[in-house]
């Protein structure tokens, strides 16, 4: 199930909220009941989209729960070898499951392509959210091994941690150590409920009103192909995609954080206006922060981080970025995208550092944004070749600078693009900062309910599907 669906908004969410608050908070006042309601809701949420793969997730939960318990037992008895072998076993299992379901096809087709063997891909569909929940589970196992946390004693609480529906399928990647207290002790209150619900509506609006609309423009640009594309069209296309992916992803995180608040949780932030970044390093401190922090804590720092000699740091960085690229999708253009960022970050760190400081901020921002947009071309293109052709068009390798298509796209979507820019940059908080505190407070009273109604309008109208009787 996704948050922006009729099933979720009309049936699932009201039902879960009503059960949670009536049965859990008002009637029984029991943490166990509240957790049980959330667990059942989360499993239904997942099974709704993945009626088969839910078994995989449950197996994964069960396995890691047992291993965690065993590890703690062995630790108490000071059996270091057993702890280590259990740890390695668990890591191999988790990476193995992720690798098999996510990457097997890619490896088989690539291997067959190189060797010329007639191997057939497995064509297994990717289990939704597997990249996210596997990383959450691994944070539990690694922190347990390092002695940062205690093992979870209750299976259903551990299951709730892994499957908690607000962040189950698209993050943020919440580490067990950050949330273990909240699983057992949290108090719902008006503050977190209303903050959360408002945040959820903001996220829903980002997804339904902005991301989907901008996405359809990029889709039409991409569908027309690079052959007759003008420079103007290419730039409009990639700007739309740049905005779309931010609103889509950060909108999903907003919805997750907001829903967490509705049920009394406080999740980590995931985005912090990434498009005001003035360097690539800055960008990655603002984009998908929970993933960067995961890789920092569990890959980069264990490898030695930046407390080693330069060649080793470069190696560490490249490993992290190769993995980051790979994590985003099972295709070689994601790997290329990761390597691209690895190289940019190393350049920034060691070569451009002094130069960059002398450039005016606005110029640094512009260069950063262009680098980010080029990155998105790799990310969104159907193949690496197509990505390079698209970049070629962007930088002048086209028949025309502007054509009728480009100017029509620009004039008919101008307002949408402006709204997109305003929402991706901190324009709202700047403008409301000009208002008196009283007026600023009242604005939210109008804004969120209005956005919610608009979201419903956009969600329903997207399913408009006329049957065309005589299309001739």
């Amino acid at each position, binding site marked *: *199930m996704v948050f922006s669906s*009729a*099933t979720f*908004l*009309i*049936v699932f*969410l*009201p039902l879960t909220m009503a059960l949670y608050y009536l049965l859990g908070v008002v009637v029984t006042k029991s943490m166990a009941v509240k957790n049980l309601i959330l667990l059942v809701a989360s499993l239904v949420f997942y099974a*709704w*989209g993945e*009626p*088969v793969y839910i078994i995989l997730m449950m197996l994964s939960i069960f396995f890691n729960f047992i291993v965690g318990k065993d590890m703690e037992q062995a630790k108490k008895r000071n059996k270091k070898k057993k702890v280590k072998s259990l740890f390695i076993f668990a890591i191999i299992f988790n990476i193995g499951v992720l690798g098999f379901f996510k990457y097997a096809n890619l490896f088989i087709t690539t291997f067959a392509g190189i060797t010329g063997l007639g191997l057939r891909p497995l064509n297994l569909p990717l289990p939704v959210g597997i990249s996210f929940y596997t990383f959450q589970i691994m944070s539990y196992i690694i922190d347990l091994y390092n002695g940062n946390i205690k093992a979870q004693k209750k299976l259903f609480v551990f299951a709730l941690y892994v499957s908690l529906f607000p962040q189950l399928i698209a993050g943020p990647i919440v580490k067990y150590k950050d949330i273990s207290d909240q699983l*057992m*002790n*949290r*108090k719902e*209150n*008006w*503050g*977190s*409920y*209303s*903050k959360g*619900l*408002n945040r959820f*509506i903001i996220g829903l609006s980002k997804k339904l009103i902005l991301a989907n609309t901008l996405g359809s423009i990029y889709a039409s640009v991409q569908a027309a192909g690079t052959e007759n594309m003008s420079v103007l069209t290419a730039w409009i296309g990639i700007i739309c995609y740049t905005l779309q992916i931010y609103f889509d992803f950060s909108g999903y995180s907003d919805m997750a954080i907001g829903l967490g608040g509705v049920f009394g949780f*406080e999740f980590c932030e995931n985005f912090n206006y990434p498009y005001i970044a003035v360097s690539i390093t800055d960008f990655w401190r603002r984009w998908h922060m929970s993933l960067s922090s995961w890789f920092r804590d569990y890959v980069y720092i264990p490898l030695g981080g930046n407390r080693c000699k330069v060649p080793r740091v470069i190696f560490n960085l490249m490993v992290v970025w190769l993995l980051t690229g790979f994590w985003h999708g099972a295709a070689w253009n994601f790997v290329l995208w990761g390597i691209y960022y690895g190289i940019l970050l190393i350049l920034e760190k060691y070569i451009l550092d002094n130069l960059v400081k002398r450039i005016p901020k606005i110029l640094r921002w512009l260069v950063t944004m262009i680098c980010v947009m080029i990155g998105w071309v790799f990310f969104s293109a159907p193949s690496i070749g197509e990505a390079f052709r698209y970049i070629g068009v962007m930088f002048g390798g086209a028949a025309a600078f502007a*054509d*009728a*298509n480009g*100017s*029509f796209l620009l*004039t*008919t*979507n*101008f307002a*949408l693009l402006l709204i997109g820019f305003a929402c991706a940059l901190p324009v709202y908080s700047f403008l409301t900062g000009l208002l008196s505190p*009283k007026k600023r*407070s*009242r604005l*939210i009273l109008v804004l*969120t*309910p209005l956005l*919610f*109604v*608009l979201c*419903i*309008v*956009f969600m*329903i*109208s997207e*399913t408009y*599907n*006329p*049957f*065309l*009787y*005589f*299309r*001739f």
Partner: protein
Amino acid sequence: MEKKKVTKKSVKSRKKPDNKDYFVYECLSALIVTVILFAVSFLSLVGKDREYSENENRYLTAKPQFSWSSLMDGKFMDDAEAYLSDQFLLRDKLVSLRTDIDVFFGKREINDVYIGKKHFLFEKPSVYNETRLKKTFDAMNNLKAKNQGINTYIAIAPNSTEIVSSYLPSNAPVPNQAEQINKIYQNLTGFTPVDLCGPLKKAENPQDLYYRTDHHWTAEAVNIAYREIAKSMGLDPNAYTYENLAVTDSFQGTLASSSGIFSAKDTIKVPTCPSDVMYRVTYVDEERVTTTVFDQQKLGTKSKYEVFFGGNYPEVVIESSSSNDRVLMVVKDSYANSLIPLLIPHYKKIIIVDPRYYNGNIQDIIDTESVTDMLWLYNANTFLNDTSIASKLS
């Protein structure tokens, strides 16, 4: 100890906003959202289901039937989602509100429909695809070569983007259809081309030549085209007098449906037949015979343009009481449906073939009927996209 920490935190988050007002209004707005959420949910679940949508011209999804197999393959979930959104309260109103919002913010293209000035909607024009058209040209030239004795004419009607261009949204990318049509004519050998672009462009009120909500041409355009075609084919366009009668003023066609913009209504006019000409219409595959080319029942449906011939059929034969003994074959798309009625008195027999639906070989009809004249009548968008001509002639 842990409990203490949590309560401290919750107190903090209560005090956190820089002023009390903000907290109060945030709570109030969350309360309103909660009320909307539950109200929408309640109303959707108790609301009465609609079976059919006029605007979308389709049956709406009904309440899905539960079964384990549909649950396991996910069909139940898809159906439930479709059911909830199809039966959402005020669905049609929400859709039209959405298009209003889109248009307000400058959007001028929805579902391949250009939203023009003064409620004029345009079908997004087709492109000239050399490889696809090469096949069509080869097939048509071949047929002509095999049937040298038949007078063959081709008339490609331009679409509204070419003729009513002043109503197009600013900057809308449209090809030059006059050029496209000329290129088509140049690629056909032995065909007598009929120029429709020129005369239609010269019309006094070009905006009356096409429906605002549908991709077809109107009776006014048909009159102009008829005179041009008749002149080319050596017929006297003044031999018979026709009158156009309005049969409906509430036509909202394909372009309105595709875009979801139902702000205008069109009038459909049909020509009266000269009273001294009788005719019989045979729908060959359907084995149905009538005495009229009009299907009045279609005026009660959404597809009101189908009042002409009841829509598109593979093969229709019209036999008339005309004293002329010539036999005309028309190979066509739906633009021809409103023009053919005017040709009836000029021919003893008219055989109408629509290659998109006809499954036989056109040569077979030519061989059995003694066809003397042949007219290819298409609109540019359909002809440019067509793949059926090549396959039905080979």
